[in-house]
């Protein structure tokens, strides 16, 4: 187990810079998720930690060592790939024992370690099968087993669940989390799925275009996103954004269609800005600022109603925890608690403290 520290990390492929000076620290034993849209550089960071790509500039520390020039095999890490990367010609047991064999461990020792790991993951009945004889979830488990068996300092996961179907993904998410609790090994987990990041990680690193946007605990990102990008990326269904203005000295936020919301308290706002509304903060009744919106689509899931509505020429999503009968084109009045409204600078996108 070890702390992973990333300092001013730059990576370029030819003339194109992919990472523009990334810095963050992964505490010993933490489960950290790197999340962001595709092309944001999250997988590149993982590959740099693994040593599969060369660092252009900056430093990566694992424990007390700078590992910039250390060979992948000497970094004491294990990686689980999106497509599992199991050796197709080797059995499950051979796949899992591969790294131990390379470490020149004795046969008995390998067998014991493989057996033990297989029991943890519930694949001990599959040890003599070939990867092609396994289902997706079983392959995933074997791939994890291969990583666990050598007891590395750091686990690296590269979108390990994205090839599984939705139901299995939820199940494996829980299993992975339980596994981490049990092993308490420092884990770096790359995903484009913010729900995976939110549900599994102790710390989430949100990335965009080769920069870190925010590092924080999952709910911290949700409640206090540093900017409009993080606010829009974290949370599903996503936050709706509306341009608004406030006159000097006024206590009202005026939307572009002239509707007025009362301003969050203690906020000194003037001129134009963007407000963000979380779908679940909008309700049918109660106290707060009310506004009228036109229903564009309605999805009933039984326990909830998801509405797509048009407000001030923007689309917003509304999540009601109740059944709600409506027809498309209807205009309804909704209510939002002003303190739940988040406000962003319209130029920089930075969140303004309310």
């Amino acid at each position: 187990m070890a702390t992973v520290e990333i300092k001013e990390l730059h990576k370029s492929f030819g003339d194109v810079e992919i990472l523009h000076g990334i810095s963050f620290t992964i505490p010993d034993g933490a489960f950290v998720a790197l999340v962001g849209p595709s092309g944001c550089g999250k997988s590149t960071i993982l590959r740099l930690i693994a040593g599969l790509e060369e660092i252009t500039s900056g430093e990566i520390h694992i424990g007390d060592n700078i590992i910039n020039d250390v060979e992948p095999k000497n970094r004491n890490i294990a990686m689980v790939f999106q497509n599992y990367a199991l050796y197709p010609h080797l059995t499950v047991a051979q796949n899992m024992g591969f790294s131990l064999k390379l470490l020149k461990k004795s046969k008995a020792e390998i067998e014991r370690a493989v057996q033990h790991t297989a029991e943890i993951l519930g694949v001990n009945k599959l040890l003599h099968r070939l990867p092609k004889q396994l289902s997706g979830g079983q392959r995933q488990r074997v791939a994890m087993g291969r990583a666990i068996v050598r007891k590395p300092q750091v686990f690296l996961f590269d979108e390990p669940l994205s090839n599984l179907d939705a139901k299995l993904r939820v199940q494996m998410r829980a299993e992975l989390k339980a596994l981490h609790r049990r092993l308490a090994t420092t884990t770096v987990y790359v995903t484009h799925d913010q729900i995976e990041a939110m549900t599994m990680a102790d710390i989430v690193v949100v990335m965009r275009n080769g920069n870190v946007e925010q590092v924080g605990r999952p709910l911290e990102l949700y409640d206090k996103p540093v900017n409009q990008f993080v606010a829009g990326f974290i949370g599903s269904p996503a936050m709706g954004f509306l341009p608004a203005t406030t006159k000097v000295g006024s206590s009202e936020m005026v939307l572009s269609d002239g509707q007025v919301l009362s301003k969050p308290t203690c906020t000194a706002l003037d001129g134009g800005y963007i407000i963000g509304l979380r779908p679940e903060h909008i309700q049918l009744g109660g106290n707060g600022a009310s506004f009228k919106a036109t229903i564009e689509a309605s999805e009933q899931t039984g326990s909830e109603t998801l509405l797509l509505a048009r407000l001030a020429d923007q689309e917003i999503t509304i999540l009601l925890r109740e059944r709600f009968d409506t027809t498309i084109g209807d205009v309804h009045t909704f209510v939002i608690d002003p303190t739940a409204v988040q406000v962003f600078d319209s130029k920089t996108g930075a969140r303004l403290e309310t």
Partner: protein
Amino acid sequence: MSATDRARRTNFLLDVTLFVICILLLTPLILLIANGFKTPQEMLVWPPTLFPKDPTLENFHKVFTETPLLRWMLNSFLFAILSTVAIVATSALAGYIIGKFPFRTINIIFILFLATAIIPFEVYMIPLYFQVKALGLLNSVGGLLVGYLVMSFGIFLIRQNVIASIPDELLEAARIDGAGELWIFWYVVLPLLRGPLAALAVLAFFQAWTAFAWPIIVMTRKKSFTIEVGLANFQSAYTVDLSLLSAASAAVMVPSVLAFVLLRRNFVEGIAASGMKE
């Protein structure tokens, strides 16, 4: 006429056509084998008989005692095996490196490899001969092998297979697991290339086994002939003794047919992969 009738008639016509083609292809082969068992008198009978009236083993006896046929077959076999081993080894290594380490210089080398495929062997056969002569390798398996150690098509075939069937992650996983590059090549890449390598081996073996132009100019001593050269020699040295030539050819066919039966699947794969047969 109903659709099923029409389909049945089409099938019947197809069967008849294929059967006729089959007979046309097999007749020379059957005739060749039959000729091997005929007496010199029966050889000259017109129209030729498909099955010998008075079968004799005399021709085979003569061929094996009067010419070093077995020696020639052994030469061919040695040449073909060594050539196969070399081609499989060079193609596997070069194909893997070109497929998985795409540096610009390596790509240029690959294009040069490919370019050699469009230059007919006959163009550089004579300069190569002088080179082999200068090296003192005439009449030796070594001289024969020059030009049969590397097959540009083989490198291409393996490269394509490496790109299509060996994901980068597999190699990366092995690197993280602690494997060195040679280890990865031997224990991860090679086992995964077993199919294409077997197909290539069959192709390479028969390319060497049926080679004619190069062996005939490099091997000048009768003892060092390959089987193809030996067979051709019947025509001048033995004044086209048809029954002897037939017997020798029939005998030579045995290992080929045997190999085909044993390696049929690889053989078909090889031809399907290359779209060519020699």
